[in-house]
C-alpha cells in the first residue's frame, strides 16, 4: 500500500483557551488535490499552517510522505526537532499565501532563485535556469527583472507559485491564493494551479472558489468550528450536501 502524501490523525490546535482545531483526520494520496472549504474562522488556514510546522499542534499526529511533521518519535516519546531538521523538511513543502508575501527588495528572478541557492546550496546558474523555466511556465518570462510592486496581484501570486516550485516540493499548500485578487485576475492564477494539478502535483488548497474545487479537486473537505463536517468527491458534496451547515454555506457562496 502506498504511503499517503499527507496523513492527519486527530490534529488539535489551541491558542490559550481557544481551541481552533478539534481533531482533524484526513488523508491525501500523491498526485491528488484536496480542497478545503469553510467559513472564516473554521480553522482551514490554521490546519494548512500546521502541515509545514508554521504552527505547532497540541495533540494528534501529522505525517508528510510518511515522515512525522515537527517531531521525531523515539522509544515511544516525541522529541522536538532542531531548527535545521524542521527547515530541511519544510523544503519539501511549498506554500502560497493569500497576500503573496513576495520579497519586495528582490527582483522577480531573485525571489525565485534565492531560497534554492541559500537553503539547498544549489549552484546559482542551475537555479537561475530552472527559475526562468518556471517563470516562463507561469507566463512571466518578460517580468524577470521587475520588482514585486511593479506587478499586478495576479502576477505577484504567479511569481509566488514559481518561487515555491523552485524548491521542487512534493506537496504544495495554497492558503486562499485568490482571495486578495481583483475578480478579473483570479482566472490567471487558477489556470496556473490547474496546470500544476494536471501535472501530478499533490496539492492542499484552501479556497472559496467552488468552481475550481469542483473541477480540479479530487476531494472536497468542508470544515466548520475546527472539525471536518463533510468530505467526499467535490461534485457530490456540492450537489447534495448532507449537513445543514454545508448547505447554508454553499447557498451563500455559489
Amino acid at each position, binding site marked *: 500500500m502506498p504511503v499517503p502524501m499527507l496523513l492527519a490523525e486527530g490534529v488539535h490546535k489551541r491558542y490559550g483557551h481557544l481551541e481552533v482545531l478539534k481533531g482533524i483526520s484526513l488523508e491525501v494520496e500523491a498526485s491528488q488535490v484536496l480542497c478545503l472549504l469553510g467559513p472564516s474562522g473554521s480553522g482551514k488556514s490554521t490546519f494548512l499552517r500546521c502541515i509545514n510546522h*508554521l504552527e505547532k499542534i497540541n495533540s494528534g499526529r501529522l505525517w508528510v510522505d510518511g515522515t512525522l511533521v515537527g517531531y521525531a518519535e523515539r522509544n515511544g516519546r516525541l522529541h522536538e526537532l532542531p531548527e*535545521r531538521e524542521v527547515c530541511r523538511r519544510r523544503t519539501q513543502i*511549498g*506554500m502560497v*499565501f493569500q497576500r503573496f*508575501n513576495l520579497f*519586495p527588495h528582490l*527582483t522577480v528572478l531573485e525571489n525565485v532563485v534565492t*531560497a534554492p541557492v541559500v*537553503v539547498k546550496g544549489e549552484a546559482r546558474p542551475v537555479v537561475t535556469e530552472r527559475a526562468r523555466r518556471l517563470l516562463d511556465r507561469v507566463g512571466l518570462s518578460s517580468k524577470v527583472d521587475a520588482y514585486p510592486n511593479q506587478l499586478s496581484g495576479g502576477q505577484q501570486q504567479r511569481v509566488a507559485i514559481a518561487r515555491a516550485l523552485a524548491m521542487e516540493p512534493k506537496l504544495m499548500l495554497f492558503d486562499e491564493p485568490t482571495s486578495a485578487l481583483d475578480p478579473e485576475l483570479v482566472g490567471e492564477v487558477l489556470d496556473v494551479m490547474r496546470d500544476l494539478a494536471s501535472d501530478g502535483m499533490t496539492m492542499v488548497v484552501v479556497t472559496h472558489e467552488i468552481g475550481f474545487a469542483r473541477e480540479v479537486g479530487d476531494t472536497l473537505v468542508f470544515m466548520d468550528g475546527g472539525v471536518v463536517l463533510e468530505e467526499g468527491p467535490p461534485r457530490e458534496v456540492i450537489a447534495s450536501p448532507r449537513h445543514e451547515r454545508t448547505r447554508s454555506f454553499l447557498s451563500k457562496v455559489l
Partner: protein
Amino acid sequence: MTVTEVDHDRHRPEEIRAVPVRHPGRWVATAVLLVLLAMLAHSLVTNPNFGWSVVGTYFFAGPVVRGLVLTLELTAAAMVIGVVLGVCLAILRLSPNPILSGSAWCYIWFFRGTPVFVQILFWYNIAALFPHIGLGVPFGPQVLHGNANALVTSIVAAILALGLNEAAYYAEIVRAGILSVDHGQVEAAQSLGMRRIQLMRRVVLPQAMRVIVPPTGNETISMLKTTSLASVAAVTELLYSAQQIYARTYQTIPLLIMASIWYLVLTTVLTVGQYYVERHYARGASYALPPTPFQRLQGMLGSRSARRRVPPGDVPGPLSDPLRRQG
C-alpha cells in the same frame, strides 16, 4: 444634452487665467526677513570681533587638522562599537529567553538613562574604581592584568563611553526596523526552509534597513558633534584643539567660529552620503524616489529624456536614475 456634447467637442473652453490671490502677509514677512538678513550680513562684515582673519589663519593649522582627524576617528570608532553592539542588543532584546531580553533591556535602561557626559567622566576615572584590570577565570586566577590608568587612556575612555552609549540608542533603532518588517515575510522565508539566521540576513534585515538607515545618518551626525564632549577628558579633538589655542591667544570667538565651520562642513558631507545610502536601500519601495540633485540639474539643462516628468502614480525605478529609466 447632445448639443452641449457637440459644443464641447467643437469649442474647447478657453484656458483659465485667473487673477491669483494676493498674500500681503507673505510680502511683509519677506521684507522683515530681508532686513534682518542684511543686518546680520553687515555685522558679519563690519564687526571686527568676529576675527575672520584669525579664523582663516587657524583653519588649516596643524593642531586643528590633527584635532579634526581625531574627531573623525572618535566618531568612526564610537559608531562602529555602537552599531555592532546595538545590532546584538536588538536581537537579544527580541529573544524569547527572558534573561537575554531582560539583560538587553537593563543595558539600554542604564546607558540611555545616564548623561553621556557623566559616562565619559566615569570611564576617564575608572582607575579609581578598578585600579587593576585583568583577564582570567571568573572568581579564579588572572592570566593577563594591567594598570587601569595605562589601559584606559583618555581616548579609550572617550571611545568606550561614546560607543557604549550609542549602542543603547542604536539597539532601539534596529529593533524598530526589525519590527517594521511584515510578519508575512518571515513566514514566507520559513516556508521556503530558511533558518532564523538566513531569513534575518536575506529577508528581514535588508528590508529593515529602509527604516534603520535614516536614523543611522542622524546618529552619526549627532555623534560627530557629541565627540566634542571628549574635550572634558583632555582628548585633543577638534574643539579641544581650538580651546588650547584660544587659552593661549584669548581669541575665543574666532576659534569657536572656526570649529563650528568645520563641524558644519563635516555634517554637510555626512548628510550628502546619507542621502545616497537611503536611495540604495529604497529598492522595491512603493514610493517614488525623488531625482538626485545631479539628475535635477540634468533636467534643468533640458536633455530630452530627462525633461519627461514621472507621472505621480507611476512605478518608481528600483535603484537610482528613475529619470533615465522612465526616459
